[in-house]
């Protein structure tokens, strides 16, 4: 296999899902002949006619249709054109899909694909990370792959799962992130990964920020610091064990995210570590998120809005020097 990108993993996983499981179909805006706004479904309609269906611009109905199909035993994949538009599907996801199994005992095995995260020039409505919103509600599984192999395997696992899954894929990684193949280390869907071992401090993060954290860690290694990077992979349920084990080794935590600062993944991580791993901490746990404004359009503002290797490094130095 020649070099493959993150977006290829998403496409290939869907192709194999369609080929292997008659319960799978894809529903979304422009996912058919056009292959989707990001080409994540390119070629799939031709290969699986009738099972890759263009939807009207109706996110509420798209999610509702998937819930109905899931009730019939199908395992639909719904592509949002951008994660940000899933605000329209929010009610169906958190109130309908998420509550169904607990209320009735009938599962809703659907997957909602959210092209997430900022890219330069995308602005306030094509850049959001929505994992924290969905994770707040009981009944949803929320995942956010950071690697090519995870993008592939976690999508396959998500679609196979009997629960509704919010699959957050990061747009910045689509073409930039490459690998030799789709292999990963076979971690189960809900387990976190030690992306980079270290002993002086732990960065717990996910999605595109894993790569920024690794960059920051590399720079700090030149200063003699060994930073451990934990990739959550699954936002909910969250693999607290792996986090705690890492904090037990390093004694220091930086929770890093690309979303807005109030609440969210980083608050949940810090909160768990502070509650259950208080005695493990040698320094106050820290958080680093995007800023508390809409995501700016201008690339210079955008770069300042989200954490960067520089700002991560700065936070880590503060943490290490405590």
């Amino acid at each position, binding site marked *: 296999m020649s070099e493959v990108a993150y977006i290829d993993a998403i496409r290939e996983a869907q192709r194999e899902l369609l080929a292997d499981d008659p319960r799978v179909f894809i529903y979304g805006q422009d996912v058919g002949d056009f292959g989707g706004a990001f080409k994540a479904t390119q070629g799939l309609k031709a290969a699986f006619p009738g099972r890759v269906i263009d939807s009207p611009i109706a996110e509420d*109905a798209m999610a*509702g*249709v998937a819930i109905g*199909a899931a009730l019939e*035993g199908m395992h*639909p994949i719904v592509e949002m054109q951008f994660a940000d538009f899933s605000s329209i599907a929010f009610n169906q996801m958190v109130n*309908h899909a998420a509550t169904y199994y*607990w209320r009735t005992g009938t599962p809703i095995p659907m997957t909602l694909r959210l092209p997430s995260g900022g890219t330069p020039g995308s602005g306030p409505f094509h850049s959001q990370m929505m994992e924290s919103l969905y994770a707040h509600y009981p*009944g949803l599984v929320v995942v956010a792959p950071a690697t090519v192999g995870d993008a592939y395997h976690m999508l396959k696992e998500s679609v196979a799962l009997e629960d509704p899954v919010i699959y957050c894929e990061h747009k910045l990684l689509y073409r930039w992130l490459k690998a030799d193949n789709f292999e990963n280390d076979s971690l189960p869907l809900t387990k976190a990964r030690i992306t980079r071992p270290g002993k002086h401090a732990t960065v717990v993060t996910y999605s595109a920020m894993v790569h920024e954290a690794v960059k920051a860690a590399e720079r700090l290694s030149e200063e003699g610091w060994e930073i451990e990077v934990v990739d959550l992979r699954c936002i909910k349920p969250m693999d607290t064990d792996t986090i705690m084990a890492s904090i037990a080794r390093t004694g220091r935590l930086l929770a890093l995210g690309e979303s807005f600062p109030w609440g969210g993944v980083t608050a949940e991580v810090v909160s768990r570590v502070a509650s259950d791993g208080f005695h493990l901490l040698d320094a106050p746990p820290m958080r680093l998120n995007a800023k508390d404004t809409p995501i700016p359009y201008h690339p210079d503002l955008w770069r300042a809005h989200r954490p960067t290797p520089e700002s991560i490094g700065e936070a880590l130095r503060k943490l290490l020097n405590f």
Partner: protein
Amino acid sequence: MAIAADYQESACRAARAMVTARVLEDKLRSLYKAGKIVGGVYLGRGQEALSGVLGTQLIPGKDVFAPLIRDQAGRTGFGEDLLDVTRTYLGSVEGPMRGRDGNIHRGRPDKGMPAMISHLGAAVPVVAGILLAKRLKGELDGVVGATCIGDGGASTGAFHEALNVAAVEKLPLVVVIANNQYAYSTPNQAEFSGNLADRAAGYGMRGWEAKGNDLADCLEKVGGAVAAARRGEGPQLVVADLLRLSGHGEHDDGAYVCEDLKKGPLGRDCMDIAKEQLLSSGFIEEGTWENWEQEAREKVTEAVALTQREPTPDAHGEVWNACKAVGAETY
């Protein structure tokens, strides 16, 4: 108005569902007044003809029916067990919702009856999705999916998006709008402008207008819509005028309902009309209707009695995990 002879069987089936629903809901009302039911009680009083016809025009085990808050008659007609009702209202763990959800939120998705959420309009795309899935599985032939909504619910974006999707996919979806002239206290003129039946054309759907309290007319229109959908003629929109003969819920006296409406043709109880029609069509004899009522009363009494002996949920034994495949987190 007499009903054509070939409607005899379907008219009687609908009427029996109506009678059972009315008797059952009278009982629910008194249980509520007696403080035996906690939370809301929303009745279909006055809407039994419309709902009962819809439920009995559908084929249990084959079709799909997503009822809304005033569809006891339709539920019963579609085969819902009385015990499902009493158990859900009284919070028995033996019921389909096991005390986790209550009243009209119950369903039996495995029997073609999804369990509604409160958000109006949200069920419409779900039925569309079920039908789409059946098509993908090659099982759609001759199947109909039906759902109900109120005049108020027709204002929701969910309703619009779903009708549009159903029309694009040419799904055999029947959407019945029970226009009972009010959404809670809000009269039609503050809910929409013009005529709801004109919405159908906008979606490229066939539209039907029915007298919602008139069994004969419902048989013709709702029956017609279901049959058209079954023949593969795509989605159908039925708008039926009628009046809610109770409060919005049993906590509400409905004092805002206009007296003229109550006294007018919409104010006539569909039960009276139906009984008259069955009698004058020679479908039933004097006394039959009362026998049905008596039978219903016995069954309802039995169901309530049985349910009241059943356990309600035990919070200590409860499984606090909203997911099926993924373990609960400990917090």
